């Protein structure tokens, strides 16, 4: 599922805006409803007072000038009483037949009355009937209300009220819309402000300088929700910088490694030109320069190999399988048998059943490099011994050579890229000092430890100690 490419800001706005609309609308409806009910109650009160005034003969409504006319009085005062419906102005809208009450007639709020009012509504106006009948005893003489009981049902057209209500609703909607716009603007600003930490992070990342400063995001100054993100970004930065550093170091070392033969070629040729001695000396200089170029070529090749090896050996080996060490070392011994016998060396095997989990190709390179070195540095007729087997809860494999012992001062640097011992360089053994670096890289990959120590009077032992399989597995 592909999410539409929306901004976080837009999403937040889209989520909050409907909720806000709903709240505003509900509030508006409630407000309008309440107001209308109040208006209606006020309307009813007024009507009631008006009616009472009208029927009691005062004939004056609170809004003045309402007078009950004689005709109405007469009819209203007819013996037996009758019901009538008056409008607010005192006009008789409906009058019950004479004797209506005596006949047991109809309750004021009977169906007939309602029906009649409905027909009134049909004439184009809505009428409000008072929710109760008004009973008034007409004053006969003097001010004492002793006359016959008159009951009236009062109705008044609602048009004025309805108009007022419509206006109020319009106004409410207008105000509501205005409020909506205002709050939307506030929301917009609030969301923007709320998203500020993200922008701050972005600015910080933009200005993060190179690896020297080791600048990172300050996790403590990032809001809680963004903290895991910041942590991940910091982790990523660290990894990237680590890689850049490694790359830089590699490039620097490679450049240095290339510089040495270039220096030699240059100095040889320039010196030859400068001294201009015999023809033979010139030829020797050319010969030497050619050999140096050869060395340069080999170094370039090794660099390529290492670059490839680094690419081949990323964070973890891709194919992990059960590797039998005796089998692996045995096949390697066969592969190097020819090279060894050409130098009169013998390869002895002391292999005990032991297996580890790991990347077979990488392990082959590890032990291949060790064996290659052993063949290179062991003198003629030397003995190279391959050993493997369980030891002290670990699995150990070792390559022993018959070469001159590596000086103790060189040992710590042995597994560094481009390191070549002084005696190696002096003896003009070809190589770029990468084999052991690669071996160490592979060992690291398998959580193994690679060490070098002197063995016996002559020779060196390179030991690879793997953690034992059941406890810990290779990555």
């Amino acid at each position, binding site marked *: 599922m592909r999410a539409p490419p929306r901004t976080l800001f837009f999403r937040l706005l889209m989520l909050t805006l409907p909720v806000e609309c709903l709240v505003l609308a509900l509030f508006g409806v409630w407000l309008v409803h309440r107001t209308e009910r109040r208006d209606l109650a006020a309307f009813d009160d007024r009507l009631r007072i008006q009616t009472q005034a009208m029927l009691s003969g005062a004939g004056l409504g609170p809004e003045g000038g309402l007078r009950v006319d004689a005709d109405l009085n007469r009819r209203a005062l007819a013996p037996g009483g009758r019901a009538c419906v008056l409008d607010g102005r005192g006009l008789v809208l409906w009058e019950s037949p004479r004797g209506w009450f005596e006949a047991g007639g109809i309750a004021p709020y009977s169906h007939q009355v309602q029906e009649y009012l409905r027909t009134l509504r049909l004439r184009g106006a809505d009428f409000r009937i008072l929710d109760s009948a008004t009973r008034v005893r007409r004053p006969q003489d003097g001010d004492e209300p002793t006359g016959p009981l008159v009951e009236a049902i009062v109705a008044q057209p609602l048009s004025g009220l309805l108009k007022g209500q419509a206006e109020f609703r319009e106004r409410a909607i207008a105000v509501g819309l205005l409020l909506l716009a205002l709050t939307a603007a506030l929301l917009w600003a609030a969301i923007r402000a709320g998203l500020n930490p993200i922008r701050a992070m972005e600015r910080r990342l933009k200005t993060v300088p190179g690896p020297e400063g080791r600048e990172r995001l300050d996790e403590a100054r990032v809001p809680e929700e963004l903290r895991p993100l910041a942590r991940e970004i910091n982790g990523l930065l660290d990894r990237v910088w680590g890689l850049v550093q490694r790359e830089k170091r590699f490039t620097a070392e490679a450049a240095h490694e290339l510089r040495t033969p270039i*220096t030699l070629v240059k100095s040889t040729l320039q*010196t030859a030109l400068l001294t201009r001695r015999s023809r033979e000396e010139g030829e020797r200089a050319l010969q030497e320069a050619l050999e140096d170029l050869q060395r340069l070529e080999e170094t370039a090749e090794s660099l390529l190999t290492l670059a490839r090896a680094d690419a081949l050996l990323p964070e973890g080996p891709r194919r992990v399988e059960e590797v039998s060490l005796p089998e692996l070392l045995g096949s390697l011994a066969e592969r190097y048998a020819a090279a060894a016998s050409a130098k009169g060396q013998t390869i002895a095997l002391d292999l005990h059943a032991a297996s580890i989990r790991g990347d077979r190709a990488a392990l082959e390179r590890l032990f291949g490099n060790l064996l290659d070195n052993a063949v290179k540095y062991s003198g003629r007729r030397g003995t190279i011994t391959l050993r493997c087997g369980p030891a002290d809860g670990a699995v150990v494999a070792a390559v022993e050579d018959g070469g001159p012992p590596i000086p103790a001062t060189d040992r710590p640097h042995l597994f560094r890229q481009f390191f070549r011992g*002084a005696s190696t360089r002096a003896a003009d053994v070809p190589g770029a000092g990468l084999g052991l670096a690669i071996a160490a890289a592979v060992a690291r990959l398998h959580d193994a430890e690679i060490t070098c120590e002197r063995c016996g009077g002559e020779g060196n032992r390179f030991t690879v100690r793997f953690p034992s399989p059941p406890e810990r597995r290779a990555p």
Partner: protein
Amino acid sequence: MRALIVEDETRLARNLKRALETLPTFATDVLGDGGEAWERLASGEPYDLLLLDRMLPGMDGLELLRRLRESGSRLPVLVLTALGTKEDIIQGLDYGCDDYLVKPYDTGELLARCKALLRRSQEHPAPVLRVADLCVDTRTHAVARGARSIELAALEYRLLEYLAFRPETVVPKAELLEHLYDYNWEKFSNVIEHYVWSIRTKLEAGEEPRLLHTVRGSGYRLAGESAP
């Protein structure tokens, strides 16, 4: 003048020695080990110039330099190394070397820098040395008296240049011996007398007044007029 080359790459060291010895100025020694070089320098062997690699077996070049400066030596040092980043160069100069050249270097430039270092350390920055009407050009190694140019053998030139850097000064014979020959040379004191005689002959071939004076029991002195 004597130069010491400390460089572990044997062929490069040989090339350096050959290049330096194309200049008649220098008698050159080569060492491939930093520790050995320090011993040689600490023993007071009188060198006039040191060409120093940085990554050396025995003792790191900069460590050697540090010890050398700590011992108060004013020996001009040119660091010649493949470590050529800005930081490396700054570090090298801060350790007290006088010049820093990154490999692969240009031999011509290296020689020019060596000559410049030498002039500076001898407190004589002008490339042409003049004593009375004698001219010694340290760039071309041409020697002339007035308008008359003089052909000198390499060792003759070396001796004359050494004295020309110190006009009016009595230079003992032992000092001359120490500064004109490399470490492996059999030092016979009468060679100096032989060369002095030979130079004097060439300098006075046009009946000019004597410049190279013998100070009895002390040494030699290159000066316009006779003993003060």
